[in-house]
């Protein structure tokens, strides 16, 4: 295939350094493993270096393209000098960017003044009432800050499902045999007390799929604030943006404050304010994450105006598949904020039969409704109508919503 090549320790170190610059988190341990790996091989060819390096130096499929590029850059000139210009043929794997942040290095952005101010913003109840019914699109910068602070206080209780792991507890259906033995040692093996175990409930993950096309800007930002707040409250949250394609931004949101995260995402998501291929994006979500906890058994909230450049069947089929896998599917369509709105856009009409709850999500009151729709029926504080807001909003006036109470506490 090709001539044997000489790979020294220095080469290994330099190659590892190049990969590190490209964003792979490599330790010295891996560099050493790479070096030892090449020593295991007799008459190392470039082909071997490629495969050995890929096994040792990468640990996720998403890193393969980075590795390929770095390998070609680093080794191909040398190969050309050897007179053996055979770059190893990589097995094509369809990779998709997993996280939006892979490209950029975290820049030390000062926390935006927005955040601190938002927390300290004085919110009086009358102002909250006004804000709650005002569309996100109609808000000015100051109102958006206050709205963001209110969104952070939403904190819905997500539904739980039964877990499988047994942990020691004060009461529970299972005997903690290990604890029993421990407890009975001081009494010469006479069990005086029976320790118990139970399976704590696990929270279902929440997945937000946010359309970031042109008209959705203000609403997408509001929902991103919500996702950020939930993520930092310690819930299991996954956030995707969709536009021309699907981008997973959970890690980017996890890093920093909401506003800094939004700025980073605006840089990383290249289809921000572009057109929408909604059907393709949802299909991509199902294909890539259909078996993943981000979709299977999760609460999925899709936020989009349903104006789709794909054929409506694409979206319909994808939503059907998504609905089968997800625990509950909520669709937020800001256009629904207008009482005259009818879901006639073809994409929207195709998606609706597969949606459990259809809400507007255009203002804070509607966000409160969304939070209530996320809570399972028996956990709900105040009961909605029998079929919560399916095609019809149950009650526009969420008078004594949580926002009100919590905001009142904070303002006092």
């Amino acid at each position, binding site marked *: 295939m090709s001539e044997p090549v000489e790979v020294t320790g220095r080469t290994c170190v330099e190659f590892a350094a190049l990969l590190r610059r490209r964003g792979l988190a490599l330790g010295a341990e891996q560099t050493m493993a790479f070096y030892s790996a090449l020593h295991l091989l007799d008459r190392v060819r470039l082909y071997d270096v490629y495969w050995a390096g890929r096994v040792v130096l990468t640990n996720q499929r998403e890193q*393969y393209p980075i590795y390929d590029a770095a390998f070609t850059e680093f080794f191909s000139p040398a190969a050309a000098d050897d007179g053996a210009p055979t770059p190893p043929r990589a097995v094509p794997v369809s990779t998709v960017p997993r996280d939006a942040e892979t490209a950029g290095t975290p820049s030390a952005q000062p926390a935006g003044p927005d955040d601190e101010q938002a927390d300290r913003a004085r919110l009086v109840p009358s102002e909250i009432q006004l804000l709650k019914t005002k569309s996100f699109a109609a808000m000015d910068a100051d109102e958006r800050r206050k709205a963001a602070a209110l969104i952070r206080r939403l904190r819905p209780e997500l539904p739980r499902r039964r877990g*499988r792991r047994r942990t020691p507890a004060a009461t529970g259906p299972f005997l903690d045999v290990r604890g029993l033995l421990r407890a009975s040692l001081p009494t010469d*093996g006479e069990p005086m007390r029976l320790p118990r175990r139970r*399976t704590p409930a696990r929270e279902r993950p929440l997945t937000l799929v946010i359309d970031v096309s042109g008209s959705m800007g203000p609403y997408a930002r509001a929902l991103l604030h919500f996702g950020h707040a939930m993520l930092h409250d310690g819930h299991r949250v996954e956030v995707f943006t969709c536009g021309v394609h699907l981008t997973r931004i959970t890690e980017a949101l996890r890093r920093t404050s909401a506003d800094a995260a939004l700025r980073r995402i605006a840089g990383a998501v290249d289809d921000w304010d572009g057109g929408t291929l909604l059907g393709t994006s949802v299909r991509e979500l199902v294909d890539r994450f259909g078996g993943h906890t981000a979709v299977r058994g999760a609460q999925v909230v899709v936020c989009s105006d349903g104006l789709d450049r794909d054929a409506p069947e694409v979206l319909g089929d994808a939503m059907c598949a998504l609905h089968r896998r997800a625990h509950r599917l909520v669709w937020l369509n800001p256009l629904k904020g207008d009482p005259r709105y009818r879901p006639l856009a073809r994409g929207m009409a195709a998606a609706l039969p597969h949606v459990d709850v259809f809400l507007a999500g255009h203002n804070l009151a509607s966000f409160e409704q969304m939070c209530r729709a996320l809570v399972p029926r028996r956990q709900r504080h105040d009961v909605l109508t029998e079929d919560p807001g399916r095609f019809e909003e149950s009650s526009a006036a969420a008078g004594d919503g949580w926002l009100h109470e919590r905001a009142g506490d904070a303002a006092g």
Partner: protein
Amino acid sequence: MQHPFTSPAELKQRLGGVSYLADDPLAMATFLALGLGRPLLLEGANGAGKTEIAKALAALLGRDLIRLQCYEGIDTSQALYDWHYGRQLLAVRGSDEREAAEVFTREYLLSRPLLQALEAGDRAVLLIDELDRADDEFEAFLLELLSDFAVTIPEIGRVAAPAPPLVVLTSNRTRDLHSALRRRCLYHWVVHPDAEREFQILRVRAPHVPEELARQVAAAVQRIRGLGLGNPPGVGESIDWAGALHLVGIATLSPEVAGATLSALVKDIDDQQLVAERIDDVVPSTP
């Protein structure tokens, strides 16, 4: 670690001897896992042969295969060790006053797969299957095992493997594994075989199927995987399918027979419909 192979090519050839046809990258990955004494983390599509490689390696090296199937809620008492509580209680109650029974000793310990593998050392191949199905708390138990090939049992102390066992982990990516775990392993993404290798696999695994039919099956399966199904068929399914076609007694594949026997190959109704619609494209009709 000492092992009898001098090159990935030799390992590949020897794996062929135990009916596992690996491609070059996978041969390299297993060669390095053996040579460096590191765990090997395999991810990839369902049915691409992730579990089989562990079985093949065990057969090839003449080692015991110790398999830990992961599931949600698995914990140390099922995976690592447990105490024999009944005997412990009896011992405590039966001991006389003056010498208190010591019940947290090796003789009261029950080995579960991970501990068994450590005790067997390099006489075992440890397969930790579908790790993504276990919850993430369980991953933490594995960290010490994977980096040092040792576990610490609080009552006894550290149990280290005399020589590191070969550890193969598989994951179907239903959950993201923690990077601490990934860092301790060699990583390889297993892809479906190409048509030629699949044909050879069929020849080895389903030797009763005529060569011509096997070749057609391999080519058709390759095209079916290209249709973008929700669950593309794995190697096991194509072996089943070839067997099914042989069973119904045909010598050459035709769209009609392919459509009728699709239940052996595609196991999802949406996917079946998609394949049925495109059956003329994926299975060329015989002249």
